[in-house]
């Protein structure tokens, strides 16, 4: 039997502290797909909020700690597009010149994958089994869409679910108004942008808006619940692995996606 694909979860601060269930969903799903998942201890935050506000030395301090945690990792999976962008696109520029962590930062950048991209582009998985049922709309997170150039992988995964009707969200590629510290620096503007997003979500008649970034989820669910809307904002992983939906599928996966995916990646 081939060695399984090994992946480390970089959980991100928001998922760790506010949405641990997203982390649990990812771990469970990946294991079901035959991936050996580990969770390097000592994780905090990637430093993106510091970096985007112009606190680069402060962000570098955080990055310097984060980088060595993943030195032994084959793949690093990140549940948020913005954090994946930070690690892939900004870490090398931030600390790439430093003898101690520079080379590691570049390696980490190459091995880091946003969750949906890891499933589709690394594992080659396009269909998973889930108990989730209903109509969903997908919101493109800015950093995943424009930062990492990804719009298809999440749609492919959602479109491949038998019980899920994926509807196109009008203005799906427009910002939800989160923007990290922007959301509290200019709360009225941020909320006004959010109102447009919510109006578009409601137009679709979806019971749930799906995103691949915990920041967007915090913003959209915050607006939806304040308005008393029954629409939920969920992470892609929560759709692909519906926690508590029903009994987990048998493990290890009998055949299909997992075996193929593992083989393909090892061969690469």
């Amino acid at each position, binding site marked *: 039997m081939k060695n399984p694909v090994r992946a480390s979860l970089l959980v991100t601060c928001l998922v760790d502290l506010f949405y641990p269930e997203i982390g649990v969903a990812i771990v469970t799903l990946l294991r079901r797909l035959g991936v050996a998942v580990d*969770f390097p201890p000592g994780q905090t935050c990637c430093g993106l909020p510091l970096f985007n*506000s*112009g606190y680069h030395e402060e962000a570098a301090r955080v990055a310097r700690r984060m980088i060595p945690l993943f030195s032994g990792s084959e793949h690093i999976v990140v549940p948020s597009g913005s954090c994946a962008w930070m690690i892939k696109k900004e870490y090398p520029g931030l600390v790439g010149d430093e003898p101690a962590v520079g080379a590691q930062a570049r390696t980490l950048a190459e091995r880091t994958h946003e969750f949906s991209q890891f499933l589709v582009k690394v594992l080659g998985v396009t269909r998973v089994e889930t108990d989730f049922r209903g109509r969903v709309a997908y919101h493109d997170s*800015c950093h995943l869409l*424009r930062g990492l150039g990804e719009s298809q992988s999440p749609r492919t995964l959602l479109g491949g679910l038998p019980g899920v009707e994926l509807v196109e969200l009008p203005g799906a590629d427009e910002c939800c*108004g989160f923007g990290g*510290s*922007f959301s509290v620096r200019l709360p009225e503007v941020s909320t006004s942008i959010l109102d447009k997003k919510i109006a578009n979500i409601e137009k679709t008649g979806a019971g749930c808006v799906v995103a691949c970034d915990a920041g967007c989820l915090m913003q959209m669910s915050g607006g939806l619940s304040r308005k008393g809307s029954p629409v939920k904002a969920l992470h892609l992983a929560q759709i692909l692995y519906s926690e508590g939906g029903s009994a987990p599928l048998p493990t290890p996966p009998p055949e299909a996606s997992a075996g193929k995916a593992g083989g393909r990646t090892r061969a690469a």
Partner: protein
Amino acid sequence: MSNQASTKPFGERAAVALKDAFLQEALTIATTKFIGLRKDSFAGFPQGEELRDQARAIKEATLQKLDHYLEQLADNVERLGGHVHWAATAEEARETILGLCRDRGVKMAVKSKSMATEEIELNEALERAGVTPIETDLGEYIIQLAHEKPSHIIAPAIHKTKGQVADLFSRELKERFAADPEVLTAAARKELRQKFLQADMGITGANFAVADTGTVVLVTNEGNGRMVTSLPRIHVAVMGIEKVIPSMTDLMVFLAILARSATGQKLSVYTTLVRGPRRSGEVDGPEEFHLILMDNGRSRQIAGALREALYCLRCGACLNVCPVYRQIGGHAYGETYPGPIGILLTAMLRGDRAVKDLAHASSLCGACQEVCPVRIDIPRMLIALRHRLNRERIAPLAERLMFGIFSRVLASPALFRLGAALGRLAQRPLVRSGRLRSLPLLLGRWTRSRDLPPLAPRSFTERWKELE
């Protein structure tokens, strides 16, 4: 504009704009239309992407030899009988024009749309000197009648609905007009026709200036640019020094993408190429042609972090897609150049202090960079600008302290865990049906309009043990 900027903080100006129902309606209609037109235009133009790369490369190469191209341009303009004036500052540019007006007895000047003349606040200076400036671009004419400033780089009156324009015209022109764009345009046209014939001076900006031919290029849709450059006896063109391009071949590249980015047109209705004054034997054109090459802070940026902002073609595409601009419009920025690129241009022209708040008027969503015809990395430069505000200690002390502490916490798993534990304790009395609906201090800025999820009882890190 700087006065306007200092009266109220940016956040308050933005909040006021959000409550202006007319503004919201006008902005939504106009920006949505522009976005669609641009998208359709590029969808049917597969070579567009390559042309954008090419245009960017031309801008970069030109900047590297800017002095050379400017000298070549000046030589060629003078060879054609024109006069070239170098202006290091806005004031020098203004004084040059006022001097020309004085020496030549100019009482009225017609203008075609020009952001460069907005930048130097020329109209106010002309009025103070007893010269009547008349804006002849329809949008500029509207806002001149309303005593306002442009709120968009290419659509100065974008913030007004047609109903508001009809009311304005009825009041100012003493005649009742219907809220019909055709009727209103005809009214403006009738008013302006006489002014073109009366004016002693025509003042324009320049979309491009071609170094090896000495050609000043104006891109317009109303034909007013052509009237301004050919009817009055003196034509003065004001341009930022970054507008020079090497050759006519380069011009073709820019023309192919400029109007598509701005309005979705293949080409604007008029592309006016001006080469010096009227020559003997020619029937029209001005007796005198003056080109003002204005620096006003630009050359300082050539080697700086904002260098790419000097590529800007002033197409306005980044404004149309910016979620912040689309909500608050141009006036709330309080500066000559609004929108994402406007923040960078303001920093360039007026210094970093002028953008202390504006530098944060972006969610960094990246939509601006995506549509920019020359792919200016606006988000990256906004981040660089924020970094400078921090390093130069222009950012508030409280903010710098907070981020300093924040980074210490994030760099230490023990402090991170402690912070989370304290947060869980503190939130306990505040959780209402699983949500935080009202929080104090900074977080109150979130919960005023949105719920916040509480910190989970157990973090993922704690739950991992069961998953292992």
